[in-house]
């Protein structure tokens, strides 16, 4: 499957972020990494090829991943959102519309496949 558009992975745990990013890269997608919401917004402001945000919820800094996902769906509506957390299990009403959720620990390769499918041209 040939995937287009890049993915932004936001996760403060380096090891987990790297593993997720590597798995997504293996599907052929380009991946950008951020350790917090602030870094993520800086990358989004700089690039126009990000098609999907994959973010953790609990992260240091003044904005958590859930708040980030709302900011992104508001400022960059075309960007899809995938949220992951080991602490929270948000319902559909707690997340931006059409966002999907994975509980931690997740199967990085499985999540990467789903992300790739979401970005595949219809």
């Amino acid at each position, binding site marked *: 499957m040939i995937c287009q558009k890049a993915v932004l992975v936001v996760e403060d745990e380096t*090891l987990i972020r*790297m593993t997720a990013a590597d798995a997504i890269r293996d599907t052929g997608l380009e991946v950008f990494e951020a350790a917090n919401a602030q870094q993520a917004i800086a990358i989004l402001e700089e690039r126009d090829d990000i098609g999907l945000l994959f973010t953790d919820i609990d992260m240091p800094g003044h904005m958590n991943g859930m708040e980030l996902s709302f900011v992104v769906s508001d400022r960059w509506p075309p960007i899809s959102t995938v949220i992951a957390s*080991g602490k929270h299990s948000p319902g559909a009403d707690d997340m931006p519309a059409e966002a999907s959720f994975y509980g931690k*620990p997740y199967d*990085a390769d499985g999540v990467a496949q789903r992300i790739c499918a979401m970005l595949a041209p219809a």
Partner: protein
Amino acid sequence: DFIYQPVRDAHGEVSGIFVEGVDVTGRIHAERALQESELQFRTLSEAVPNHVWTSLPDGTLDWFNDRVYQYSGVTRGDLDGQGWAAIVHPDDRALASERWAACVANGENYDVEFRIRRADGSWRWHIGRAVLTRDASGKPLRWIGTNTDIEDQKQVHRQLADSERRLRLSQRAAGIASMEIDLATDCIVGTAELWDMFGLPVQDSAPATDIEKLVLPEDGAAISTTQSRREGAVAPEAVYRIRRADNGEIRWIACHMEFLRDQTGSPLRTFGALRDVTVEKEAEERQLMLTHELEHRIKNILATVSAIASQTLRATDIDTARKTLNERLQALGAAHSLLSSTHWTSALLHEVVGSATAAFVAAQIAVSGPPVRIGPKRALALALAVNELGTNSLKYGALSVPEGQIAINWSRTLADDGSDRLIWMWRESGGPDVLPPTRSGFGGILIEKVLAADFAGEVGIKFDPDGVECTLDAPWPTVGGASEE
């Protein structure tokens, strides 16, 4: 009644007989009545269960009924006069005598409690009463007295008082306040503990609203109201928060309510037992938070393990992967043990290094540096990095030969911008010639990327022919700072 008297003349001769006739019908009747009344009194005296006695107006006791003698086992007559005092308890004797003397002096009714000795030697409480009887002209005739056994009532009283005292003590020990709410007046009568619990001055009673207004508005639905109490429709258990009247402190109160109802089921009286459960509530909340926190931590650990496993199993043969994965998980486990001992707040840097190198020959490793605490994330990253450096050294570096040495040092240095920095170094010497690795594996990533990212610093590895040298240059760690976790 007749009086016969000889009537004599001046010479002493009897000249006639003087006969005086007095009509004594009334007196005879009176005497007969008295005898009858006396008989009735004696009969009655022997029929009643009480001790009955009589006394002369001057206080000298002159008669006791059989019951007194049966009860006391004293020989008939021995109680007369002041003899009665002998069977009154020594502690009560003075009071009984004084009162008796006072009553005899002023003719007032006698009424006093004292213990009287029974034939078997036991003492039983009696209430002694006596009244002075007078004739029609008001002249004192005699005292009629009774002693009534009140030992059983006394005991019931004592038991009630004892039980009341026990209840009060245990309530106090358990921190229980009790109250009764009068349904008609809606007033609360409570123990001292009740007022203390709400931070109010101790008082006999107060309107229920005085206490109800201390309940936090958001918990108002939990408490009973004037209406619900009158209807008797009150939940037996309620837990709510109050703001204490004296210091404004928020406390949790658990209240148990009971109703006393009439035959139709309508509430007559309502009782409540209250307890300050703030400590339990706080412990419960802490417990809940800790459980949640623990679950989060376990998920994070599993996510980390999952990442390590997935990275380790990438691009390597299964036997090597199995061994490497085990080593990495052991390094992770050792670091977790250190963190557990501080309740997951921090670990000492030298302990992290020590536990990560514990599997190697101690004589080949020299560790030195100032004491510094690092947070959980950094401790795990450092443990994983040291494990990678160590296992790599065991395969290709200084630890692969007996004469090889590793020096691990760190120091606190001042950067150009005035900030404190941690310079941490791993230096190998005495090993075989070092060749740079042909490709960057996950071990290298753990050292260069993860360690650097988690310490928010830079990591450099030099594959110097004399030995591997790894340097971490990062801000001096502060536990609990914004950059940690």
